[in-house]
Each structure stands twice: as C-alpha cells, then as structure tokens.
C-alpha cells in the first residue's frame, strides 16, 4: 500500500473505476440495441407499409433498453469527478472507486443485453400484427422495465460505495470493495439477461396470441421474479460486506475471505439467472399458445427454475461460510 503516494492511488482508482464502469456497462446495451435494430430491419422488409410504426417501436425499445448504459455513464462521471474527502483517501479511495466501477459495469451489462430480446420480439410482433402495436409495445416496456431492476440494484450499491466509507482498512478494504463489487455486479449479470429472455418470449407469445396476453404477462412476471433471486443474493452479500462485516483480519486473510465470498456469490448467480430466464421464455410462449393449461405450464416452469437456482444457493452458502465461519 505504501509504494504509491495518496494522490497517485486516487488517480489510479478514478481511471480504473470509470474505465470498468463505462467499458463493461456499455457492452450490454449496445448489443441489445443492435438485436432490436436487426429485428426491426427484418420486420420492415416483411412489412414496408408499416415502417413508421416499426421505427417507432424499435426506438422506444432502444430508449428503454439504453437506460442501463446511462446509469453506468452517471456513475462513471461520479467516479471520475467526485471530490475525495473525509477519511477515504489514498489506497482506500482507489478500492472504493474500483469496486463501484465493477458493480455498475457488470450490473448494467446484463440488463442492457436482456432488454434487446423484448425489443426485437416487439418489432417482429408489430410486423406480424400491426393493429396490435400499442399492446405489443406496452408488454415490451413492462418486460424491459422489470429486466432493468438488477441494474438498479447495482447502481444503488455503487452509490453506497461512493458515499460511505468501508468499515475496514488496509488490504481488507480492497477485499471488501472488490468482493462486494463482484457480488453485486456479476450477481446482476445473469438475472438481467434471464429476465430479458423471459420478456422476449412473452412479447413474442402475446403478439401471436393477443387473446391470452393476460396470462402470458403473469407467467412472464413470475419467471422474471424467480430469475432475479441470484441478484438479490448478490446484493445481500454486498450489503453484509458493506454494513455488517464480522471482526475481520485486516491483512491478506481478510482480503481473501471477502474477495472469495464476492466471487462465489457473484459469478454463482450468472448461470441460474440465465437458466431461469430460458425456462421462462419457453413457458411464456406455451402459455400464450395454450392458455388453458397455463397452471400446468407455470408449475413445470417453477419446478425447473427451483432446481436451476440450487447452484446459486450453494454459492451463497460458500460465500456466507467464507464471511462468517472459516
């Protein structure tokens, strides 16, 4: 910690943190908007007479799906220009800014990418059924709004990083900041993508079978809620590290415990988040096509999602063991 002076640490932290925030946070939204634009092009070729409506649908989808990257931009600018002050100086300031950058960067990656599927499905749906464009657009916006909640969790954690000093110092402060950043950021990545794919299936289904759009939307919201559990686990671990850390060795052992817990809780949530979203995608399509068996479909989806969440629970257990037991 002593081999750099306080001002150098501060600049290293600002540049790395802002780079991670904007570099990672922009990828998802950009790819997601590209998915929407590609589907809009296909749709305009199929229905040239509806090009005005299709362009509007595409732009609404891209505007809503682009908001995670705007969260990342705001946090990135805060990381760059927020005045350093109080007791957070030098290496601790660097740790805090890098942690905030990882949290917001990875967190906005998932939600931005996820919003691309409902955007693309809405363009396809409007081309197939132009008279339903209002209801298709509103189910797209509902799906995208829910898919954005993981990125909002990540924004909250990044703001807490920037405005509240960590409770530990030394090498352990690096562990806490990196660990909580990864737990929240990577934990939000999978749920953001998964909620988006579930919304894509629902928009597709309700545009083909508009008469069953009520039960389709219900299945979508349940699927998205289950798919977001890993993000809540990640936020829980981040909150524990930021507010309720037990007495911790401030040297390399504290660093290893907090960083390890963050990696387990964060990356452990990616797979279950994406997997539960895939289950939701298929379940929404089936519910739309066959609303009479919606209870059976919902039950099968929930059983499958529960099994898929088991590895996120193992990862949460390992994270809690690392923080409280070992």
């Amino acid at each position, binding site marked *: 910690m002593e*081999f*750099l*002076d306080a001002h*150098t640490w501060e600049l290293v932290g600002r540049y790395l943190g802002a780079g991670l925030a904007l570099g990672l946070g922009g990828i998802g939204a950009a790819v997601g908007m590209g998915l929407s634009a590609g589907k809009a092009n296909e749709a305009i070729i199929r229905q040239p007479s509806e090009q005005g409506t299709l362009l509007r649908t595409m732009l609404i989808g891209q505007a809503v799906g682009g908001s995670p990257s705007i969260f990342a931009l705001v946090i990135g600018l805060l990381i760059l220009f927020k005045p350093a002050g109080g007791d957070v100086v030098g290496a601790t300031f660097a740790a805090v800014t890098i942690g905030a950058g990882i949290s917001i960067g990875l967190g906005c990656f998932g939600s931005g990418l996820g919003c691309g599927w409902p955007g693309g499905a809405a363009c396809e749906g409007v081309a197939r059924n132009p008279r339903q464009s209002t209801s298709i657009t509103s189910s797209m916006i509902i799906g995208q709004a829910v898919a954005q909640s993981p990125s909002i969790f990540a924004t909250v954690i990044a703001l807490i990083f920037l405005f509240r000093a960590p409770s530990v110092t030394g090498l352990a402060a690096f562990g806490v900041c990196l660990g909580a950043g990864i737990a929240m950021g*990577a934990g939000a990545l*999978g749920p953001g993508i998964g909620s988006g794919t579930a919304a894509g299936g629902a928009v597709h289904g309700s545009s083909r079978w508009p008469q069953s759009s009520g039960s389709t939307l219900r299945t979508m919201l349940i699927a998205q809620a289950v798919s977001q559990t890993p993000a809540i686990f990640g936020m829980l671990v981040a909150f524990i590290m930021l507010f309720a850390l037990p007495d911790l060795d401030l*040297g*390399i*052992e504290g*660093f*290893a*415990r907090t*960083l*390890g*817990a*963050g*990696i*387990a*809780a*964060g*990356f*452990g*949530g990616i*797979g*279950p*988040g*994406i*997997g*539960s979203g*895939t*289950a*939701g*995608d*298929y*379940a929404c*399509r*089936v519910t739309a*096509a066959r609303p009479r*068996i919606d209870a*059976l*479909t919902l039950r*099968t*989806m929930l*059983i*499958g*999602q529960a*099994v*898929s*969440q*088991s*590895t*996120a629970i*193992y*990862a949460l*257990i*390992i994270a809690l*063991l*690392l923080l409280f*037991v*070992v």
Partner: protein
Amino acid sequence: MDLTTVLSAMQTVVAQPEAAGISSAAVIKAGALIGAGICMGFGAIGPGVGEGFAAGKACEAIGRNPQEAGLLTRTMLIGQAVSESTGIYSLVVALLMLFVVGK
C-alpha cells in the same frame, strides 16, 4: 513514483512474502479461500444454464402434449439431477478448500 518501483515492490510481495510482513502460511490459506470462491462461483454457471434449458424444453413439450405432463416432469428432473452433478463437485471441492486445505 515510476512504474519500475511499483513493479519491484509487487515482486517483493510475490517472491518473498516474509520480507513484506506476510507469512507463507497466510498466503497459502488466502489462496485456498479465494480458490474456494472461484471454484463455487464459476462452477455454478454451467448447471444453472443447463437446468434452465431443460426446464424450458419440458414446458414446450408439455404445451404439445399435456397428457404426458407427469412423464415429462420426471424426465426433466432426472436430466437436471445429472446436470447438477458438476455443481455438487464444485461445492465439495470448495468445502474441501475451506475446511481441509485452508485450515
């Protein structure tokens, strides 16, 4: 403060932890603890994605043939249990690193 000084300070920590005030036992324990986190974190990705895919396809199949829902759910659960095995391997190895190696 130039880059060479930073690199040589880092090299001291990596090559001779004792000189930097860290015992090698602490370094080994730290490695086991971070390793447990990486093991369970990345090990959880595959089963989660795979089991979700199996659940999605089961829903699709039940949509085609609702009379066979019991058979399809059973097949889905067997497939998911097999897919879960790598997640359980990760859990076992992570617990070994926490309570056997890292002690």
